[in-house]
């Protein structure tokens, strides 16, 4: 069976001046249809860059990205964007400050030539738990959680099959995080969506994903299942440090 998303030896490097920065150095993973895959790492681990490379926002300098068994085109075509969408980390930066929610949601429909736009926009807003009264509001009139719901609605309005989630809740308060995670969970169950979720928070990934990869310095440290994680079966030192740190503060030096 072909995986829904198959990443083979992905490499991404940037040139800043004469220096070359290797952000991702050979990462491979497969995500089956309807699965949820987590990528955990700290800043600079290249976890977000993996997502950006999949959807064409970062240059793929080596390796392959296969969608439904076929290599993706460069640049990505309209069909790819109908199927793969992304939700960004900061809901304050991912909505255009001068566009109403209506415009945010109708633009992708216009680009891809959908007809019944009004109906689709209303459905999309209802699906993410926002009523029609938010339709003509501007982003600054919404709270962070409401904005992130709009961002999810925007990503889902083209009815994609894959959702790339780049730290979708790290800019939100804990109580709002729970609401957004529940929303994402429900949408996946209802629509059979495939998720790739990037986060620095092991607990969020453990809650959302069946399988996860720990990244550091652009490379894979360890691949685990949720059961491994919950049982604390980490084989690598780095993963153990992450696990310990996410339990809260411990006064003792755990390892040097």
């Amino acid at each position: 069976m072909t995986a829904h998303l198959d990443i083979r030896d992905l490499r991404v490097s940037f040139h800043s001046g004469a220096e070359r920065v290797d952000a991702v150095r050979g990462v491979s993973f497969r995500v089956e249809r309807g699965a949820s895959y987590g990528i955990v790492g700290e800043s600079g681990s290249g976890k977000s860059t993996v997502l950006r490379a999949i959807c064409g926002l970062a240059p793929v300098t080596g390796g392959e990205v296969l969608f439904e068994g076929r290599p993706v085109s460069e640049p990505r075509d309209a069909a790819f964007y109908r199927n793969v969408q992304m939700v960004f980390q900061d809901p304050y930066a991912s909505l255009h400050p001068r566009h109403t929610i209506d415009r945010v949601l109708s633009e992708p429909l216009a680009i891809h030539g959908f007809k019944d736009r009004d109906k689709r926009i209303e459905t999309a807003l209802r699906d993410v738990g926002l009523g029609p009264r938010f339709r003509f509001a501007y982003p600054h009139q919404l709270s962070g959680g409401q904005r992130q719901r709009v961002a999810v609605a925007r990503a889902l309005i083209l009815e994609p099959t894959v959702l790339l989630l780049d730290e979708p809740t790290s800019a939100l308060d804990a109580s709002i995080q729970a609401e957004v995670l529940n929303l994402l969970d429900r949408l996946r169950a209802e629509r059979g969506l495939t998720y790739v979720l990037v986060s620095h928070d092991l607990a969020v990934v453990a809650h959302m994903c069946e399988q996860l990869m720990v990244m550091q310095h652009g490379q894979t440290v360890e691949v685990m299942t949720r059961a491994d994680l919950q049982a604390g079966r980490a084989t690598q030192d780095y993963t153990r440090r992450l696990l310990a740190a996410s339990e809260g503060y411990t006064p003792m030096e755990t390892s040097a």
Partner: protein
Amino acid sequence: MSDLLTVEDLRVRFPSRNGPVEVVRGVTFALGRERLGIVGESGSGKSQTGRAILGLTPPPGQAEAKRLEFDGIDLRNADKATWRRLRGARISMVMQDPKFSLNPVMTIGKQLVECWNLHAGTSRAEAKDRAIAMLEAVQIRDPKRVFGAYPHELSGGMGQRAMIAMMLITEPDMLIADEPTSALDVTVQIEVLRILDRLVSERGMGLILISHDLRLVSSFCDRVLVMYAGKVVEELKASELLNAQHPYTRGLYNCLPKIDGSARPLPTLQREESWAE
């Protein structure tokens, strides 16, 4: 134990188009030589509480209190000279983002030396030694390089540590840390907290840690104030977090996903109007 800081009925007000809005509404607490955590979500007034103690309420906001005393000094009507003697020297504040608190056109070393000289006024060489020792104390591996570096040349974690070094070089009696680690990676975060922890236990510093992270605060601090809508809704010993009485505190804790399995869907926080009164 004598209290280092006493706050009674602190209120912070901001004018708005629809009349003044109170973001801190009657906060009362005392701080000894201990680790006190203030937890709350965005907009709960936790940061404004920290700023008001240091007289740093941004205009046009106004702070007032029935009592605001630091080591016997009334802070409410402190003049500029008093603040100059206190801020930096005896009370320091660490902010969330080091970029806003470090001077971008001055090397880290120069800023540290300046800080120390304002406080002690010793010779150049001595100040430099002191600065490098401080950078070492905050676990910076290569203190000589960091001493000569500009803030933009440091990573986020390094910058944050450099700032903490600057705030601590004068050996303050009290440190207010507003989300000092939330811009940092979890592993670095723990290291930074260890530094603060040592300062409390070894030097007897009083520490106020302001954070949104209930788990972190409760595992680090001795005592926790939980703020909601500008008020302290609950004060508890950090070790008794799981026995919290107030539904807000419990809700805040329950809605966090746990690594070893959590309810699905996650319990969400049902806010009640009576919490805000």
